[in-house]
Structure formats: structure tokens, C-alpha cells
């Protein structure tokens, strides 16, 4: 999966979590400050990403997700590791 594809999927998951179809997003969007996501939104997003990519993410990981880019980086790395392991 390319980085662009991962980014698109992450955008979709965030939009569904918040129920805002036309939410403007870019890689630098900050989850808490710009998107007003709270801890419940964070858990929802994590569960959604787990389902989308068939991966397992610890709830605490949300604290490390500061921007959309940080999520994309995390998933990209995780998928790479899956491939190589």
C-alpha cells in the first residue's frame, strides 16, 4: 500500500469518527488543537484503523498521535514491519 493510499484511508477514518464528511484535512492537521478530537474519538479512530489494516494498536498510542502525519507514519512503519517479518 502506498503512502498516498494510507493517507486517504486515514482521512476517511477521521471523517467517519467525527461524522463530518467534508472535513478539511492535511498531513499537518493537529488532532486535538485543529480537529478537536478527544480521548473517545481517539479510541474510536484506533479501533477503526485496526479494523481497516488488520493491525493491533495499544490505546495509549493515541497520546503519540499528534498530527495526521504521525498516524500515517505509524501505520506505514507498522505495515513495512509486517511485510519484512
Amino acid at each position, binding site marked *: 500500500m502506498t503512502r498516498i493510499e494510507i493517507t486517504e484511508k486515514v482521512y476517511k477514518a477521521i471523517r467517519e469518527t467525527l461524522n463530518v464528511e467534508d472535513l478539511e484535512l492535511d498531513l499537518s492537521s493537529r488532532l486535538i488543537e485543529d480537529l478537536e478530537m478527544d480521548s*473517545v474519538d481517539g479510541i474510536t479512530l484506533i479501533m477503526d484503523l485496526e479494523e481497516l489494516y488488520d493491525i493491533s494498536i495499544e490505546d495509549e498510542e493515541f497520546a503519540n498521535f499528534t498530527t495526521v502525519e504521525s498516524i500515517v507514519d505509524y501505520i506505514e512503519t507498522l505495515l513495512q514491519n509486517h511485510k519484512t517479518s
Partner: protein
Amino acid sequence: MKRVVVTGMGSYTSYGLGKDLLWKNLIANIPAIKEVPVSWKIDPNRKGFYAPLPKLDYRTLDFSKSEILQFEPVTLNALLSIEEALKQANINLVKLNDKLNRYVIKDKHIDVDKIGIFGGTGIGGIETLSNATIQFAEVRSGKKVRLDALSVAKTMPYNIAAASGIKLSLHHNINSGTYACATGTILIGKAFESIKNATIDMAIICASEYADQEVGLLYNSFFYGNTLTKSDDITKANIPFDKNRNGFLFSEGGAGALVIESLEHAKKRGATILAEIVGFSDTFDGYNMVSPDLTGAYIEKMLLDLLSKASVMPEEISYINAHGTGTIKNDEVESLVLGKIFNRHTAINSTKSLLGHSISASGIIETITTILSIQNKKIHANNGLKDPISDLNFVKEPIDLDIVYAISESFAFGGHNGALLFKKFIK
């Protein structure tokens, strides 16, 4: 003292989402009844009946994934009922901002700090609690399982009032209450008194129950508590006020919501008035956790107090929407007391004869039914009634009735009794 009127109503029942479906099916005398799922049955040889709730796809009903994760259906259904009630009350909602699925009430005639929320449930989100019990056991046995970080928030009965306050971005007068099967009725009464005394201008009241679990936890708990119908004949499984009744029809739940406000507040903002609430009274048996006081002393006291506070004579009551569960004791006591106070012209029915008993939501659904009866000048039948337990005017078929005053009453496990008095709105 302020006069109090109803300006919005919303419901979710076995007939589906919306009060129009509720009324259409009640007046067409269509009973909501079905054999219970196999997974609920402890004795596979018994039939067992219940009133199922149609399943909803909450994603298509404008809830975010995050809301579906943090609210159980018991809360989501309450929010849907509130949405319908606010719409009928013509209350303007605008999105809080473009990122959150929440609203603010924007109306120059409404002071949001003088709106009260009164939300409640009988049991709350028990499915979450059941699942959490299983999850914790699995974790202890070494399995890697995602624990539900929100199980406390989803289970607590306060979730309904809190979710309503969050959804509408309110910051004052958030009230939560639970009075078992009388929850809806008592919450309306508390809201009525708060408006009457001018503590608040307007109230949004909701009560909700949801009992769909894999193993039929609530159904079986009631069944083995000897309160549910024992009949294997579907035509005799739900017959309140009949000599052959033997228990109530379990409902999978439901939700109802009302918007009520002071008359002057409703007039100021040009709202359509559906009916007036002219009285509320409640008493407590102080007798037994699961049985009514068989003398009916405190139900009688409640009804006399209700009439007296509103200066209304018993013969002025055209219609009573009874608690009418279909248990031996409830119907015996209720008919005894109604027979002492009211004459034989007062029409009586039980909405539970068609919808079963939706526990905490029953009182608010029956209030909505009572107001729809006043508006439509019709009342639905006391379905299934062949051999009445007394000579009261139980209505066996839907009838036309021009109602001026009507009562809706509820009684609860624990011994709480509540009654509301409604009046056709006359300027």
C-alpha cells in the same frame, strides 16, 4: 405559578421510529408480539413471547462512529426521540462547529440556561456490563482482548442525561433520575414542577430502556421473578385487565421524549401547543420491593391528591391510560382503586396491551399516547380483553372520544406510584 404545556414529542417503540408510527399502529389495534429468540430460552419447550424492537442502523441516523462507540442503544434511542421532539417543538438547532457532531439551540426567545434536561432509564447499558464481565474473564485467562475503556460511562444510568446535555451543548439544569417502571412519568412530573415554579422555562425529558442481549438477561430475570406472561397461546399472552391474565408481556424496550415549557414561553416563541399538563402527584407504597400494596392505599392517595391539586372532579376525567401491566396483582389493585374513585363513564385502556411493558420508557410512551388521544379525539383498544376483571369502562375497541381531562399513571418495582393529569389545550 406558571401554566405548563407540551410542544414536542418523539418516540421509538416496537412499531419503529416516530410517534406517527406509534399512533397509526395503536389505533389500528396491531399488537407488537413475537416468540422470543431461541438464545433467550432456558426451557426450550416453552414458547415465551416478547415485543421486539426493530433494529436501527445508527450510522445512517447521523451519529458519528465515536458516538456509537461511547453510547449504548439505550442512549442513542433516547437521542433520536429527543431529536424528533425538538423538531416538532420547532426549536432551531445549529451545528456547534464544523468538526463536532453536536448542536446549540439558537432562538432569540430561548434562554439556554433556563432549559432543563430530565433523562433516565430503569436499568441502563447492561449489554456493556455483560460484555465487560466476559472480557475481564478472558484477559485473566491470558487471552489478548481489547477491554472496553468506556464500559463505566456506557453502563451508568446517567449516560442518557449526560449525552443529551453534551449533544445540545447545555451547561445547566441537567437532571437524571431512575424510578424503575415509573421513570418516565416521574421525570415528566419533576420537570412539570420545575417549570410551574419558574425554576426553568423549558424542559427536555427522555426515558429509555433497551434489553436486547444475547442471553435475554432481563427477560429471564423477569421471567424467573414470576412476573411475565406464562401463556403459550399468542392470543392470550398479553391481556391486561382480563380475568385470565397471568403476567406482563416483556418489551425489548423503547424510548420517548417530550418538550414541555411554560405557556407564556411557548406563546412568545409561537410554538404549537399539543396539550396542557395540569397536575402531577406521586406516592411511595413503603411496602414491598416487587409487589404493590394490595390495599392500593397510596395509589388512591396519589390520585385524590392529583385531582385535588388541579381542582378537578373525578367525573371530569374522560380517559385514563392505565399502568395495566397484565400481572395478577397490578391489575387487581389498579382496578380496585380506579373503581373507588371514578365513575363508569371514564374510558380506560392499557397501552401495554399492544406494546408490552417497556419498563422505564413505558410512562413517557403512554404520556405521548395520552396526548395523541386528546389531539386525535380517539383512544386505542385495551387489546385482547375478553373477560374484564371489573365493571370499569375498559375499551375493547378503538373509539372516538372528545377528551378534556386525561390521566396517565405508572407504578414501579420498589413501590413508586406516579400520575400526570393532562388537559386539552384551551386558550
